[in-house]
């Protein structure tokens, strides 16, 4: 899958960084983004501008006025529209050279496997732990990396989960924090979503060191980032039986 001249021009500045080969890898990749809200917006925008060939975006909600302080894919005139329709329109305008597969659905046990299909990566841009546990189960079962992010107020966390080689989401978070209407300032999902998108791009192009075996913890109030070393739980009900399927994306011929 070679790049067109238009693509070479569009991506010239990042081709300087990871070469045409890296750009081609992005072009033939498919990333699944669960959620088109606070985290899903910056993740989708940055992956779209980076030239990920196919982005599947799933969200069940309609744009509400109270979303607009953080969900930067949606504009004031989108209030009342399905988020995925609003998102698709923006993303296609941002980058018409990629495929946006936007689906209005609630991700649940009945459809998660089919929705995620053969994606090269799953981005966790959800707002609840039960769906995160489900994404983790599918990630582990299919051997697809899971790029986790979560936020509250000015705090956030992120980690990259490679099935078979890193702790899974359930190893790191065996129990969910209580559900709540969480406070959030838009810049926080902006920061955490950008980290998730960075991880996806690094993973797909084989660049740098991934945020694996570490939980990145951001405290915007203190302007401090720290990390917590995380380890596999040998008794983890989700991943203890999983053998490594792939630790790094293979270069497709």
């Amino acid at each position, binding site marked *: 899958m070679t790049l067109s001249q238009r693509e070479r021009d569009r991506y010239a500045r990042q081709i300087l960084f990871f070469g045409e080969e890296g750009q081609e890898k992005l072009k033939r990749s498919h990333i699944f983004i669960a959620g088109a809200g606070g985290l899903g917006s910056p993740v989708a925008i940055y992956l779209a501008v980076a030239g990920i060939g196919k982005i599947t975006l799933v969200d069940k909600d309609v744009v509400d006025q109270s979303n607009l302080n953080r969900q930067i894919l949606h504009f004031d005139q989108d209030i009342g529209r399905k988020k995925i329709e609003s998102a698709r329109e923006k993303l296609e305008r941002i980058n018409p050279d990629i495929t946006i597969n936007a689906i209005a659905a609630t991700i649940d046990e009945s459809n998660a496997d089919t929705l995620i299909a053969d994606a090269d990566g799953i981005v966790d841009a959800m707002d609840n732990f039960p769906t995160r546990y489900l994404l983790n189960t599918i990630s582990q079962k299919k051997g697809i990396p899971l790029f986790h992010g*979560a936020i*509250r107020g000015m705090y956030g966390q992120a980690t990259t989960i490679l099935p078979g080689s890193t702790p899974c989401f359930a190893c790191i*978070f065996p129990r969910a924090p209580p559900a*709540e209407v*969480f406070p959030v300032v838009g810049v926080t999902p902006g920061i955490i979503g950008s980290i998730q998108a960075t991880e996806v791009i690094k993973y797909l192009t084989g660049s740098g060191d991934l945020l694996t075996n570490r939980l990145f*913890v951001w*405290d915007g109030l203190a302007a401090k980032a720290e990390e917590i070393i995380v380890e596999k739980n040998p008794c983890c009900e989700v991943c203890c039986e999983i053998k490594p399927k792939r630790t790094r994306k293979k270069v497709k011929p």
Partner: protein
Amino acid sequence: MKVKVRFFARFRELLGTDVITEPAPGTSLADLIRQIAEKKREGYDAIFDKQGKFREFVIVMRNAKRVDAGVADTILIEDGDDIAVFPPVAGG
């Protein structure tokens, strides 16, 4: 004996940033955190349940290694320990 206890995110808001403390010899990890958290009711309640056990989602680290909060009562604090107490966040 000197140890450092670091609270993260909401716990930091409630209980302050890095706490340097000098616990009595033989203090357990759980008791150390209880003693600090007790200074502010809301902070204590955020970390511990009514039975005084760690809430099940709370992550406790000692010297960068995860500690099973269920056995934190049996782990004795040692000089120089660096303890971190972290609440995962869930929003998106």
